[in-house]
């Protein structure tokens, strides 16, 4: 077992905070992607498409 000495709480808090912030960033980006693709799908179902006629979801 790794010993972190008398300042273990500072070390553990640092790593936990980094993990939490990175997890929030990843979660925000994934949820944002789902939200944008859902909104695009709804618009295309209403018949609103790009001038090129291609799906706005192209290559997404």
């Amino acid at each position, binding site marked *: 077992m*790794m*010993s*972190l*000495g*008398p*300042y*273990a709480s*500072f*070390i553990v*808090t*640092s*790593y936990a*905070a*980094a993990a939490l*912030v*990175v997890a*929030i*960033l*990843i979660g*925000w*980006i994934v949820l*944002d*992607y789902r939200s*944008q*693709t859902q*909104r*695009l799908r709804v*618009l295309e179902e*209403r018949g*609103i*498409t*790009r*001038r090129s006629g*291609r799906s*706005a979801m*192209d*290559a*997404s």
Partner: protein
Amino acid sequence: MTLIDLANPTRFLALTARVLPWLAAATVLLLAIGLYQAALAPDDYQQGATVKIMFIHVPNAWLSMFVWGVMSIASLGTLVWRHPLADVAAKAAAPIGAAFTFLALLTGSLWGRPMWGTYWEWDARLTSVLILFLMYLGLMALWRAVDDPSRAARAAAVLTLVGALNLPIIKFSVDWWNTLHQPASVMRMGGSALDKSFLIPLLVMAVAFTLLFVTLHLAAMRNEILRRRIRSLQMMQASRVAFSNEMGAGSRGQNASKEIGAAG
């Protein structure tokens, strides 16, 4: 594929869809190796085990400046070359840069309390990084305050380039002023002052966090492209509705005048 090809958002989406899974896998692998090496690194003779905080503090501090550097280049792309993806890149990078800067400040404070005896000191390095964090927040607020992305892009680009003046101040603050923060020990004249047992995990973690930034940035850029497509489709829908309303009002007006004519 050239840089010009990437100017096409559809090509950019296609390319990043193929690249992102590989980037994510490389990031996870390097982070795992870096964390393993950080766990096995010996205690420092002065800092003890708190040296382990450096393995996340230093990469985040580097990235806080690197991300602003990326945004500055993207801002040049907006103002000078008018590259269609430049302001997408700048806007997508800001929240990620803010998160890394926040982590640099937080982990620095958590290291400072046991080593310096204080969480915070208004010295040149800490204060200039705090200003960088506030500038990230200001930039994000500016993007939200202006509805039209192209107008917001120009204002944000100017602010980003002005803010880039803070980068050399952060870097050289420990040389120009008498600070509590220690001077550079990795990137300095005469080579690194760190022992290999600390330097190798630190560099692995730095590369891993840089890959994490690239992965998150590309994914956030994809989201921003989709958001702009939605905006243009919604505007197209609104103009169609307005056009059909006008046509309807016009034909109703013609019918009404015919009826008046018939009655007369």
